[in-house]
């Protein structure tokens, strides 16, 4: 189980995250929801130790994980990056397979699941936004850490692609903990088992849709969007 307690992050005088915490259990997908600027990406970067936090701790199986050792349990798939633009997709998936000690069979499965076959020989810098996003997702899926943090995994996908990726992530959640940040409530409701609502760097609620409905005092028919609006 992954436990995050009291994460605090400041940029100068501005507090981006104030006491954010959550729990994520094996086999579930936790969605971090919030409007743009809520601190979702900052939270994920702090958890992955790519950005220093001023407070808080991360526990894995009940034991605190030092910042230096975070990469042993967490892999963060960032959004909006354009890495290795001169390298072909296949070369980079090949690299991640070797770096994480995965088999060729596993690499083939990931590539096939994300339908990356037609662009394997193309440089990453020449891909469309949808293909680039899928390529980035393939790198994350080839990682071997037990917890996967994904920032806006559906950004740039059409409806059919989104449904396909939901299925892939659901399968992945069978053996890993998934924490995804999203700002589209409809996507979140399709994918996630539990939610952390984040507004202006502060947690406004955590739990399943049912428990959040109860917390907000809404009926069983209220969707995630209504719950979010009620609680934030």
């Amino acid at each position, binding site marked *: 189980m992954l436990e995050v307690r009291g994460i605090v992050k400041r940029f100068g005088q501005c507090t981006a995250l104030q006491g954010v915490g959550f729990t994520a259990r094996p086999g579930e997908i936790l969605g971090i929801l919030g409007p743009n600027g809520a601190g979702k990406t900052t939270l994920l970067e702090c958890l992955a130790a790519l950005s220093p936090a001023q407070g808080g701790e991360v526990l894995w199986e009940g034991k605190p994980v030092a910042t230096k050792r975070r990469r042993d349990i967490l892999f963060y798939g*960032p959004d909006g990056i354009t*890495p290795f633009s001169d*390298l072909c997709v296949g*070369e980079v998936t090949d*690299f991640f397979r070797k770096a*994480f000690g995965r088999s060729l069979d596993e690499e083939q499965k990931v590539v096939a699941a994300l339908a990356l076959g037609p662009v394997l*020989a193309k440089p990453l810098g020449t891909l469309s936004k949808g293909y680039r996003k899928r390529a980035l997702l393939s790198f994350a899926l080839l990682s071997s850490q037990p917890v996967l943090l994904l920032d806006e995994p559906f950004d740039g996908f059409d409806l059919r692609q989104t449904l396909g990726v939901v299925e892939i992530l659901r399968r992945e959640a069978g053996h890993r903990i998934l924490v995804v940040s999203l700002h589209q409530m409809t996507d979140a409701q399709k994918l996630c088992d539990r939610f952390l609502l984040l507004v202006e760097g502060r947690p406004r609620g955590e739990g399943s849709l049912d428990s959040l409905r109860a917390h907000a005092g809404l009926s069983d028919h209220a969707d995630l969007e209504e719950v979010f609006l009620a609680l934030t």
Partner: protein
Amino acid sequence: MHSLKRLSALLMLECRLMVRTRAFWGTLIAQCFLTGSGLIQAMRLYGGASASTVGYPEMARGLSPLDGILVPLFGSLYLATTLLFPFLAIRAAGEERRNGGDKLLAQLPLSRGLRISAKVLVILAAWCCLVIPCALGVVAWVALGGHVQIPEFANLTLGHALYGFTVAGAAFLAASLARTGAAGAILTLSFTLGLWALEYYAGSGRDWLRALAQHAPTADLHRFELGLFVLASCVRLGALGLAGFGLGAIWMDDGSALRLKWARSTVILLVLGAVLAESPWVRPAWDLSEDRRNSFSPAEEAALRRMWQPLEIAIHLSPEDSRYREFEAVILDKLRRILPRLSVATVVPHRVHEGEDDTYGLIFYRYAGKTAESRSTGPEEVLPLLFQLAGFPIPSDETPSYPGFPLVADIGSLSIFFYGVLPLLFAGLTWIARRPGRSHIQFREVQS
């Protein structure tokens, strides 16, 4: 074993990132033209000078391939290292930082040190590729009948390698501090071109500026160009390069708190400051030039080494005076490497013009309670004076004199090679390197 496989995969990735860039191949092609130009011009001048020595062996003695060919040839490497290489180094060090790739690489199951080392190795390998045209230039010179003395050549290559290491360190640091590649390039060029400016202004500047310039990377490189292997120069260039890489590694780590970065940087800067401050006291130096231009004769040096008491020299000359510079080059630099207890004082009178000060132009010597003075700045007069002070007989010099290596060669084919064949070869390699890699094609075959 797994770590080794991961490291080799990372090295392969970093190499691919380097060779896929047009900048890398463009720099290599530019280096072909620079090298060709340097070599052809040098061989033309050397050939002209050699032609005039036919029948005059005394004149041929002045023809050293180190000065005439190797230094101008490696001058192209110096230009490439100073002006072009920083762009390659900055791209390799900072590109993935700017496009977000480092966020992925930071999460690999490899230590930070290994990840940084892979990057540094690829940057240094890129510099080694810049040496290829120069190495081919040396091969061409030898193939045309030219003479190369291996220790001289190896020493010159080492000097340029250490200078390249320093520039690479500066570029690595600049890449870590700058938000954009252009800003990184400006920072690095400020460093490399700043060294030129320092050298230029030091000639007529204040004492501290002159002292600083004497220990700057360009001055250290110049010692290697003279055929000198000076350990202090190696220490300085190595320390500057290492500090650049160390500081760069600290500031590239976005996961560390700012306070920690400053603390670590302060430690590195303090250590660097201590090493640079102490480096002038690192005495060992060897003259590897074939014509022993930086040394007295072996017999004279053996006699001088027996002068174990302190020798004091007071020079009543302005440092701008050409006699001062000559005395510094032909006497003091040589004495400093032999006499550990040598102290030199420069006495500049208020009125430095000759005729207004009787002592102007005089050089005073004090050894073992005895004193002497002379206006000479050449070894023919100064060395006998020193032996007289020490009470030694003047040693006889039986060393065979340097013969010189004149050569008039046909350099027509060099233009074709350096301006045509070699750039075309690199252009072809650019095409090959930028083709899709083999791994994924294999993968597609497996899939089908």
